[in-house]
Protein backbone atom coordinates (compact mmCIF):
# COMPACT_ATOMS: atom_id res chain seq x y z
CA UNK A 1 0.00 0.00 0.00
CA UNK A 2 1.95 2.96 -1.21
CA UNK A 3 -0.55 5.78 -0.63
CA UNK A 4 1.16 7.74 2.14
CA UNK A 5 4.58 7.64 0.44
CA UNK A 6 3.06 8.53 -2.93
CA UNK A 7 1.04 11.40 -1.45
CA UNK A 8 4.14 12.94 0.15
CA UNK A 9 5.96 13.13 -3.18
CA UNK A 10 3.09 14.79 -5.11
CA UNK A 11 4.37 18.40 -4.96
CA UNK A 12 7.66 17.18 -6.40
CA UNK A 13 6.37 14.75 -8.96
CA UNK A 14 3.45 16.84 -10.20
CA UNK A 15 4.73 20.39 -9.84
CA UNK A 16 8.55 20.09 -9.69
CA UNK A 17 8.61 21.85 -6.30
CA UNK A 18 12.16 22.12 -4.99
CA UNK A 19 13.63 23.62 -1.82
CA UNK A 20 16.13 26.48 -1.74
CA UNK A 21 18.37 26.98 1.28
CA UNK A 22 17.63 30.45 2.61
CA UNK A 23 21.17 30.88 3.83
CA UNK A 24 23.36 29.76 0.91
CA UNK A 25 20.88 29.53 -1.97
CA UNK A 26 21.55 25.90 -2.94
CA UNK A 27 18.47 24.32 -4.56
CA UNK A 28 17.56 20.73 -3.68
CA UNK A 29 15.22 18.46 -5.58
CA UNK A 30 13.53 16.84 -3.81
CA UNK A 31 13.55 19.38 -0.98
CA UNK A 32 15.50 18.60 2.17
CA UNK A 33 15.34 19.60 5.80
CA UNK A 34 19.09 20.06 6.21
CA UNK A 35 21.48 21.82 3.85
CA UNK A 36 24.58 19.70 3.21
CA UNK A 37 26.50 22.80 2.08
CA UNK A 38 25.99 25.26 4.94
CA UNK A 39 24.12 23.07 7.46
CA UNK A 40 21.19 25.46 7.77
CA UNK A 41 17.69 24.07 8.38
CA UNK A 42 15.72 26.93 6.75
CA UNK A 43 14.31 26.47 3.27
CA UNK A 44 11.82 28.08 0.90
CA UNK A 45 9.81 26.40 -1.86
CA UNK A 46 10.80 27.13 -5.46
CA UNK A 47 9.49 25.62 -8.67
CA UNK A 48 12.00 24.21 -11.12
CA UNK A 49 11.98 25.33 -14.73
CA UNK A 50 10.34 22.89 -17.14
CA UNK A 51 13.10 23.39 -19.73
CA UNK A 52 16.42 21.58 -19.70
CA UNK A 53 18.93 19.44 -21.57
CA UNK A 54 20.06 15.82 -21.63
CA UNK A 55 23.39 15.29 -19.84
CA UNK A 56 23.49 11.53 -20.29
CA UNK A 57 21.01 8.77 -21.03
CA UNK A 58 20.54 5.07 -21.67
CA UNK A 59 17.94 2.89 -23.34
CA UNK A 60 16.50 0.32 -20.96
CA UNK A 61 16.01 -2.97 -22.82
CA UNK A 62 15.56 -5.20 -19.79
CA UNK A 63 13.22 -3.43 -17.44
CA UNK A 64 12.26 -3.76 -13.80
CA UNK A 65 9.07 -5.74 -13.22
CA UNK A 66 6.83 -2.68 -13.27
CA UNK A 67 8.20 -1.49 -16.60
CA UNK A 68 8.99 -4.76 -18.30
CA UNK A 69 6.30 -4.36 -20.96
CA UNK A 70 7.38 -0.84 -21.87
CA UNK A 71 10.87 -1.63 -23.10
CA UNK A 72 12.73 -0.28 -24.88
CA UNK A 73 12.50 3.15 -23.32
CA UNK A 74 15.01 5.91 -22.81
CA UNK A 75 15.97 7.29 -19.40
CA UNK A 76 18.32 10.19 -18.87
CA UNK A 77 19.74 12.69 -16.43
CA UNK A 78 18.27 16.06 -17.33
CA UNK A 79 19.73 19.35 -16.18
CA UNK A 80 17.05 22.00 -15.88
CA UNK A 81 17.87 25.61 -16.46
CA UNK A 82 18.44 26.28 -12.77
CA UNK A 83 21.29 23.76 -12.73
CA UNK A 84 19.37 21.10 -10.80
CA UNK A 85 19.62 17.56 -12.21
CA UNK A 86 16.88 14.96 -12.31
CA UNK A 87 16.51 11.39 -13.59
CA UNK A 88 13.52 10.78 -15.87
CA UNK A 89 12.32 8.96 -18.96
CA UNK A 90 12.53 10.60 -22.36
CA UNK A 91 9.12 10.04 -23.95
CA UNK A 92 7.60 10.11 -27.44
CA UNK A 93 10.85 9.42 -29.24
CA UNK A 94 12.50 6.68 -31.27
CA UNK A 95 14.97 5.42 -28.65
CA UNK A 96 17.75 5.29 -31.23
CA UNK A 97 17.47 9.04 -31.78
CA UNK A 98 18.23 10.24 -28.24
CA UNK A 99 21.45 12.24 -27.96
CA UNK A 100 23.44 13.92 -25.21
CA UNK A 101 22.85 17.65 -25.39
CA UNK A 102 19.30 17.61 -26.75
CA UNK A 103 17.01 20.26 -25.32
CA UNK A 104 13.91 19.00 -23.57
CA UNK A 105 10.66 20.14 -21.99
CA UNK A 106 9.40 18.40 -18.85
CA UNK A 107 5.81 17.18 -19.06
CA UNK A 108 3.25 15.35 -16.94
CA UNK A 109 2.78 11.65 -17.67
CA UNK A 110 1.82 8.44 -15.95
CA UNK A 111 4.98 6.79 -14.67
CA UNK A 112 3.72 3.43 -13.49
CA UNK A 113 0.77 1.50 -12.07
CA UNK A 114 0.76 -0.18 -8.70
CA UNK A 115 -0.36 -3.50 -10.16
CA UNK A 116 -3.88 -4.10 -11.47
CA UNK A 117 -5.82 -2.66 -8.57
CA UNK A 118 -3.43 -0.21 -6.93
CA UNK A 119 -2.76 3.45 -7.63
CA UNK A 120 -1.96 5.06 -10.96
CA UNK A 121 1.34 6.82 -10.29
CA UNK A 122 2.05 10.06 -12.14
CA UNK A 123 5.11 12.24 -12.49
CA UNK A 124 7.48 13.92 -14.91
CA UNK A 125 9.11 12.88 -18.15
CA UNK A 126 11.03 14.79 -20.79
CA UNK A 127 10.23 15.31 -24.47
CA UNK A 128 12.83 16.55 -26.92
CA UNK A 129 11.98 19.98 -28.32
Amino acid at each position, binding site marked *: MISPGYFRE*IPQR*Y*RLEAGRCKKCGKVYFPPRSHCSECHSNEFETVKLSDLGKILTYTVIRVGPSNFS*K*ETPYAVGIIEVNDGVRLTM*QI*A*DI*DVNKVEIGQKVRI*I*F*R*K*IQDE*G*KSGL*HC*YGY*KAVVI
Partner: protein
Amino acid sequence: MVGIVGFGSYLPRYRVKVENISKEWGADPEAIKRGLLLYEKTVPGLDEDTITISVQAARYALQRSGINPQDIGAVYIGSESHPYAVKPSGTIVIDALGIGPHVHVASYEFACKAGTEAMYVAYGLVKADEVKYALAIGADTSQGAPGDALEYSASAGGSAFIIGKDKVAAEFLFTHSYTSDTPDFWRREGEFYPRHAGRFTGEPAYFRHVVNAGKSLLEKSGMKPEDFQYAVFHMPNGKFPQMAGKQLGFTKEQIETGWIVPWMGNTYSGSSPTGLSAVLDVAKPGDKIFMVSFGSGAGSDGFIFQVTDEILNVQDKAPKVRDMLDNDKMYLDYGQYAKFRRKIILNE
Protein backbone atom coordinates in the same frame (compact mmCIF):
# COMPACT_ATOMS: atom_id res chain seq x y z
CA MET B 1 -21.14 38.17 -20.28
CA VAL B 2 -20.09 34.60 -19.51
CA GLY B 3 -17.78 32.78 -21.83
CA ILE B 4 -14.52 31.05 -22.65
CA VAL B 5 -11.49 33.00 -21.42
CA GLY B 6 -8.93 30.36 -22.31
CA PHE B 7 -8.91 27.11 -24.27
CA GLY B 8 -6.42 24.40 -25.17
CA SER B 9 -6.23 20.96 -26.74
CA TYR B 10 -3.84 18.05 -26.58
CA LEU B 11 -3.56 15.13 -29.00
CA PRO B 12 -1.00 12.34 -28.51
CA ARG B 13 1.62 12.16 -31.26
CA TYR B 14 1.07 8.50 -32.08
CA ARG B 15 -1.15 7.51 -35.02
CA VAL B 16 -2.43 4.33 -36.60
CA LYS B 17 -3.85 4.26 -40.12
CA VAL B 18 -7.03 2.57 -41.29
CA GLU B 19 -4.91 0.32 -43.54
CA ASN B 20 -2.95 -1.07 -40.58
CA ILE B 21 -6.13 -2.06 -38.77
CA SER B 22 -8.06 -3.39 -41.77
CA LYS B 23 -5.14 -5.61 -42.74
CA GLU B 24 -5.45 -7.56 -39.49
CA TRP B 25 -9.13 -8.32 -39.92
CA GLY B 26 -9.20 -8.88 -43.67
CA ALA B 27 -11.27 -5.78 -44.36
CA ASP B 28 -11.06 -3.44 -47.35
CA PRO B 29 -9.37 -0.22 -46.26
CA GLU B 30 -10.65 1.85 -49.17
CA ALA B 31 -14.23 0.87 -48.46
CA ILE B 32 -13.78 1.79 -44.83
CA LYS B 33 -12.18 5.12 -45.63
CA ARG B 34 -15.00 5.89 -48.05
CA GLY B 35 -17.68 4.75 -45.64
CA LEU B 36 -16.35 6.48 -42.55
CA LEU B 37 -14.50 9.40 -44.19
CA LEU B 38 -11.67 8.69 -41.76
CA TYR B 39 -7.97 8.00 -42.55
CA GLU B 40 -6.06 7.72 -39.30
CA LYS B 41 -6.58 8.15 -35.58
CA THR B 42 -4.60 9.25 -32.55
CA VAL B 43 -3.24 6.62 -30.15
CA PRO B 44 -2.23 7.38 -26.58
CA GLY B 45 1.24 6.33 -25.43
CA LEU B 46 1.55 3.76 -22.65
CA ASP B 47 2.19 6.64 -20.28
CA GLU B 48 -0.84 8.70 -21.36
CA ASP B 49 -4.40 8.59 -20.12
CA THR B 50 -7.38 10.90 -19.69
CA ILE B 51 -5.65 12.54 -16.74
CA THR B 52 -2.36 13.30 -18.50
CA ILE B 53 -4.23 14.52 -21.59
CA SER B 54 -6.43 16.76 -19.42
CA VAL B 55 -3.40 18.24 -17.66
CA GLN B 56 -1.72 19.18 -20.94
CA ALA B 57 -4.89 20.63 -22.51
CA ALA B 58 -5.58 22.60 -19.33
CA ARG B 59 -1.99 23.90 -19.26
CA TYR B 60 -2.54 25.36 -22.71
CA ALA B 61 -5.87 26.84 -21.61
CA LEU B 62 -4.16 28.47 -18.62
CA GLN B 63 -1.43 29.78 -20.91
CA ARG B 64 -4.02 31.37 -23.18
CA SER B 65 -6.12 32.81 -20.38
CA GLY B 66 -3.21 34.15 -18.35
CA ILE B 67 -5.18 33.67 -15.12
CA ASN B 68 -3.84 32.46 -11.79
CA PRO B 69 -4.77 28.77 -11.34
CA GLN B 70 -5.67 29.57 -7.75
CA ASP B 71 -8.63 31.63 -9.04
CA ILE B 72 -10.31 28.55 -10.51
CA GLY B 73 -13.20 27.55 -8.24
CA ALA B 74 -14.41 24.42 -10.02
CA VAL B 75 -12.81 21.72 -12.18
CA TYR B 76 -14.97 19.29 -14.11
CA ILE B 77 -13.69 16.51 -16.32
CA GLY B 78 -15.92 14.55 -18.64
CA SER B 79 -14.69 11.25 -20.03
CA GLU B 80 -15.74 7.70 -20.67
CA SER B 81 -12.25 6.49 -19.87
CA HIS B 82 -11.55 7.99 -16.48
CA PRO B 83 -8.50 6.10 -15.16
CA TYR B 84 -10.31 5.32 -11.91
CA ALA B 85 -13.85 4.03 -11.56
CA VAL B 86 -13.92 5.68 -8.14
CA LYS B 87 -11.59 8.70 -7.65
CA PRO B 88 -12.25 11.71 -9.85
CA SER B 89 -9.66 12.47 -12.52
CA GLY B 90 -9.95 16.08 -11.40
CA THR B 91 -8.23 15.42 -8.07
CA ILE B 92 -4.98 14.60 -9.85
CA VAL B 93 -5.43 17.32 -12.45
CA ILE B 94 -5.83 20.07 -9.85
CA ASP B 95 -2.69 19.07 -7.96
CA ALA B 96 -0.74 18.89 -11.21
CA LEU B 97 -1.86 22.39 -12.19
CA GLY B 98 -1.57 24.07 -8.81
CA ILE B 99 -5.34 24.60 -8.54
CA GLY B 100 -7.05 24.38 -5.16
CA PRO B 101 -7.36 23.06 -2.56
CA HIS B 102 -10.29 25.49 -2.21
CA VAL B 103 -11.98 24.13 -5.33
CA HIS B 104 -14.95 21.97 -6.32
CA VAL B 105 -14.10 18.92 -8.41
CA ALA B 106 -16.32 16.38 -10.12
CA SER B 107 -16.13 13.74 -12.83
CA TYR B 108 -18.75 13.51 -15.56
CA GLU B 109 -19.65 10.63 -17.83
CA PHE B 110 -22.12 10.41 -20.69
CA ALA B 111 -20.36 8.53 -23.47
CA CYS B 112 -19.08 11.11 -25.95
CA LYS B 113 -20.76 14.17 -24.52
CA ALA B 114 -19.21 14.13 -21.08
CA GLY B 115 -16.95 17.01 -22.13
CA THR B 116 -19.77 19.32 -23.15
CA GLU B 117 -21.56 18.34 -19.97
CA ALA B 118 -18.62 19.64 -17.99
CA MET B 119 -18.74 22.82 -20.08
CA TYR B 120 -22.46 23.28 -19.45
CA VAL B 121 -22.13 22.88 -15.69
CA ALA B 122 -19.08 25.14 -15.57
CA TYR B 123 -21.00 27.78 -17.53
CA GLY B 124 -23.97 27.56 -15.18
CA LEU B 125 -21.79 27.92 -12.09
CA VAL B 126 -19.98 30.99 -13.41
CA LYS B 127 -23.24 32.52 -14.64
CA ALA B 128 -24.65 32.13 -11.12
CA ASP B 129 -21.58 33.92 -9.74
CA GLU B 130 -20.85 30.88 -7.64
CA VAL B 131 -17.21 30.78 -8.80
CA LYS B 132 -15.00 33.28 -10.60
CA TYR B 133 -13.57 30.76 -13.08
CA ALA B 134 -14.48 27.16 -13.83
CA LEU B 135 -12.37 24.72 -15.84
CA ALA B 136 -14.21 22.20 -18.04
CA ILE B 137 -12.37 19.40 -19.80
CA GLY B 138 -13.50 16.73 -22.23
CA ALA B 139 -10.85 14.03 -22.73
CA ASP B 140 -10.76 10.35 -23.57
CA THR B 141 -8.57 7.39 -24.47
CA SER B 142 -11.45 5.42 -25.89
CA GLN B 143 -11.29 1.71 -26.65
CA GLY B 144 -12.58 0.03 -29.78
CA ALA B 145 -13.09 -3.71 -29.67
CA PRO B 146 -10.71 -5.68 -31.94
CA GLY B 147 -12.21 -6.29 -35.38
CA ASP B 148 -15.16 -4.05 -34.62
CA ALA B 149 -16.13 -1.03 -36.71
CA LEU B 150 -15.32 1.25 -33.82
CA GLU B 151 -11.72 0.10 -33.79
CA TYR B 152 -11.07 2.38 -36.76
CA SER B 153 -12.30 5.47 -35.01
CA ALA B 154 -11.92 5.21 -31.23
CA SER B 155 -9.03 7.56 -30.45
CA ALA B 156 -7.45 9.73 -27.75
CA GLY B 157 -7.27 13.42 -27.04
CA GLY B 158 -8.95 16.23 -25.17
CA SER B 159 -9.71 19.91 -24.82
CA ALA B 160 -10.02 22.27 -21.90
CA PHE B 161 -11.99 25.47 -21.49
CA ILE B 162 -11.68 28.04 -18.75
CA ILE B 163 -14.99 29.78 -18.31
CA GLY B 164 -15.37 33.15 -16.64
CA LYS B 165 -16.75 36.66 -16.91
CA ASP B 166 -13.48 38.58 -17.31
CA LYS B 167 -11.86 39.03 -20.76
CA VAL B 168 -14.22 36.62 -22.46
CA ALA B 169 -12.98 35.48 -25.89
CA ALA B 170 -16.10 33.52 -26.88
CA GLU B 171 -19.40 34.31 -25.16
CA PHE B 172 -22.10 31.70 -24.46
CA LEU B 173 -25.23 33.11 -26.10
CA PHE B 174 -27.59 30.13 -25.87
CA THR B 175 -27.59 26.52 -24.69
CA HIS B 176 -30.00 23.62 -25.08
CA SER B 177 -29.88 19.96 -24.12
CA TYR B 178 -31.95 17.05 -25.40
CA THR B 179 -31.84 13.67 -23.67
CA SER B 180 -33.70 10.35 -23.68
CA ASP B 181 -33.21 6.67 -22.92
CA THR B 182 -31.96 5.48 -26.29
CA PRO B 183 -29.69 2.46 -25.73
CA ASP B 184 -27.45 2.75 -28.82
CA PHE B 185 -24.05 2.25 -27.12
CA TRP B 186 -23.05 1.49 -23.52
CA ARG B 187 -20.49 -0.23 -21.33
CA ARG B 188 -21.33 -2.29 -18.26
CA GLU B 189 -19.23 -1.93 -15.09
CA GLY B 190 -16.13 -4.10 -15.35
CA GLU B 191 -16.30 -4.62 -19.09
CA PHE B 192 -13.20 -3.62 -21.05
CA TYR B 193 -14.89 -2.84 -24.37
CA PRO B 194 -18.23 -1.09 -24.97
CA ARG B 195 -21.14 -2.61 -26.87
CA HIS B 196 -23.20 -0.91 -29.54
CA ALA B 197 -26.34 -1.56 -31.52
CA GLY B 198 -24.95 -1.22 -35.06
CA ARG B 199 -27.09 0.87 -37.40
CA PHE B 200 -29.38 1.79 -34.53
CA THR B 201 -26.67 4.24 -33.45
CA GLY B 202 -27.47 6.35 -36.51
CA GLU B 203 -30.91 7.76 -37.15
CA PRO B 204 -32.66 6.91 -33.85
CA ALA B 205 -29.67 7.91 -31.72
CA TYR B 206 -27.14 10.33 -33.18
CA PHE B 207 -29.35 12.11 -35.66
CA ARG B 208 -32.50 12.29 -33.55
CA HIS B 209 -30.68 13.95 -30.66
CA VAL B 210 -28.30 16.16 -32.60
CA VAL B 211 -30.94 17.44 -34.98
CA ASN B 212 -33.55 18.00 -32.26
CA ALA B 213 -31.10 19.77 -30.00
CA GLY B 214 -29.91 21.79 -32.99
CA LYS B 215 -33.42 22.77 -34.07
CA SER B 216 -34.38 23.82 -30.54
CA LEU B 217 -31.21 25.85 -30.26
CA LEU B 218 -32.00 27.69 -33.49
CA GLU B 219 -35.58 28.31 -32.33
CA LYS B 220 -34.49 29.52 -28.91
CA SER B 221 -32.00 31.92 -30.40
CA GLY B 222 -34.17 33.08 -33.26
CA MET B 223 -31.13 32.58 -35.52
CA LYS B 224 -30.80 30.89 -38.89
CA PRO B 225 -27.95 28.64 -40.14
CA GLU B 226 -26.72 31.44 -42.44
CA ASP B 227 -26.02 33.61 -39.39
CA PHE B 228 -23.14 31.36 -38.36
CA GLN B 229 -19.54 31.27 -39.57
CA TYR B 230 -18.83 27.88 -38.03
CA ALA B 231 -20.75 24.74 -37.07
CA VAL B 232 -19.25 21.96 -34.98
CA PHE B 233 -20.90 18.59 -34.35
CA HIS B 234 -19.92 15.45 -32.52
CA MET B 235 -17.77 13.41 -34.89
CA PRO B 236 -18.04 9.62 -34.48
CA ASN B 237 -16.84 9.40 -38.10
CA GLY B 238 -16.49 11.81 -41.01
CA LYS B 239 -19.96 11.22 -42.46
CA PHE B 240 -22.35 11.78 -39.52
CA PRO B 241 -21.44 15.42 -38.77
CA GLN B 242 -21.69 16.29 -42.46
CA MET B 243 -25.13 14.71 -42.68
CA ALA B 244 -26.35 16.32 -39.45
CA GLY B 245 -25.06 19.67 -40.56
CA LYS B 246 -26.84 19.32 -43.86
CA GLN B 247 -30.09 18.31 -42.16
CA LEU B 248 -29.93 21.44 -40.02
CA GLY B 249 -29.14 23.65 -43.00
CA PHE B 250 -25.39 24.22 -42.62
CA THR B 251 -22.92 24.17 -45.53
CA LYS B 252 -19.75 22.15 -45.90
CA GLU B 253 -17.70 25.33 -45.61
CA GLN B 254 -19.24 26.17 -42.24
CA ILE B 255 -18.44 22.68 -40.94
CA GLU B 256 -14.97 22.36 -42.45
CA THR B 257 -12.72 23.95 -39.82
CA GLY B 258 -14.20 21.98 -36.94
CA TRP B 259 -14.39 18.77 -39.00
CA ILE B 260 -11.16 17.19 -37.75
CA VAL B 261 -12.19 13.55 -37.35
CA PRO B 262 -10.58 12.23 -40.57
CA TRP B 263 -7.10 12.77 -39.01
CA MET B 264 -7.95 12.55 -35.33
CA GLY B 265 -10.52 9.81 -35.08
CA ASN B 266 -13.29 10.01 -32.54
CA THR B 267 -11.87 11.30 -29.26
CA TYR B 268 -15.27 10.70 -27.62
CA SER B 269 -15.61 13.32 -24.89
CA GLY B 270 -12.92 15.29 -26.66
CA SER B 271 -14.64 15.18 -30.05
CA SER B 272 -16.82 18.27 -30.46
CA PRO B 273 -14.83 20.17 -27.81
CA THR B 274 -11.68 19.72 -29.89
CA GLY B 275 -13.63 20.71 -33.00
CA LEU B 276 -14.59 23.87 -31.13
CA SER B 277 -10.98 24.44 -30.13
CA ALA B 278 -9.89 24.09 -33.78
CA VAL B 279 -12.41 26.77 -34.67
CA LEU B 280 -11.35 29.11 -31.87
CA ASP B 281 -7.74 28.74 -33.08
CA VAL B 282 -8.66 30.70 -36.22
CA ALA B 283 -11.97 32.47 -35.53
CA LYS B 284 -12.31 36.24 -35.85
CA PRO B 285 -14.07 38.75 -33.59
CA GLY B 286 -17.80 38.72 -34.29
CA ASP B 287 -17.86 35.14 -35.60
CA LYS B 288 -20.77 33.03 -34.42
CA ILE B 289 -20.23 29.35 -33.68
CA PHE B 290 -22.95 26.68 -33.55
CA MET B 291 -22.05 23.51 -31.67
CA VAL B 292 -23.96 20.33 -30.85
CA SER B 293 -22.41 17.33 -29.13
CA PHE B 294 -23.78 13.80 -28.85
CA GLY B 295 -23.36 11.18 -26.16
CA SER B 296 -24.73 7.71 -26.63
CA GLY B 297 -27.37 6.56 -24.21
CA ALA B 298 -28.37 9.26 -25.36
CA GLY B 299 -28.23 13.01 -25.36
CA SER B 300 -26.97 16.17 -27.01
CA ASP B 301 -25.75 19.48 -25.60
CA GLY B 302 -26.05 22.48 -27.88
CA PHE B 303 -24.25 25.82 -27.61
CA ILE B 304 -24.14 29.05 -29.53
CA PHE B 305 -20.99 31.13 -29.07
CA GLN B 306 -20.08 34.59 -30.21
CA VAL B 307 -16.40 35.40 -30.61
CA THR B 308 -15.14 38.70 -29.18
CA ASP B 309 -12.09 40.89 -29.79
CA GLU B 310 -10.33 39.08 -26.93
CA ILE B 311 -9.87 36.05 -29.21
CA LEU B 312 -7.00 37.87 -30.93
CA ASN B 313 -5.16 38.14 -27.61
CA VAL B 314 -5.39 34.46 -26.79
CA GLN B 315 -5.42 32.44 -30.03
CA ASP B 316 -1.69 32.37 -30.64
CA LYS B 317 -0.56 31.76 -27.07
CA ALA B 318 -0.61 27.96 -27.28
CA PRO B 319 -0.31 25.18 -29.91
CA LYS B 320 -3.17 24.89 -32.39
CA VAL B 321 -5.22 21.82 -33.26
CA ARG B 322 -4.44 21.90 -36.98
CA ASP B 323 -0.71 21.80 -36.16
CA MET B 324 -1.20 18.82 -33.91
CA LEU B 325 -3.14 17.03 -36.65
CA ASP B 326 -0.59 17.71 -39.35
CA ASN B 327 2.86 17.66 -37.71
CA ASP B 328 5.23 15.58 -35.56
CA LYS B 329 3.25 12.37 -35.92
CA MET B 330 4.65 8.95 -35.02
CA TYR B 331 2.99 6.09 -36.93
CA LEU B 332 2.44 2.66 -35.38
CA ASP B 333 1.78 -0.74 -36.88
CA TYR B 334 -1.08 -2.84 -35.55
CA GLY B 335 1.08 -4.78 -33.09
CA GLN B 336 2.45 -1.60 -31.52
CA TYR B 337 -1.07 -0.13 -31.50
CA ALA B 338 -2.46 -3.23 -29.76
CA LYS B 339 0.34 -3.10 -27.20
CA PHE B 340 -0.23 0.61 -26.49
CA ARG B 341 -3.98 0.07 -26.13
CA ARG B 342 -3.38 -2.86 -23.77
CA LYS B 343 -5.35 -5.20 -26.00
CA ILE B 344 -2.77 -7.93 -25.52
CA ILE B 345 -3.48 -10.38 -22.70
CA LEU B 346 -0.60 -10.29 -20.23
CA ASN B 347 0.34 -12.91 -17.69
CA GLU B 348 -0.41 -10.98 -14.54
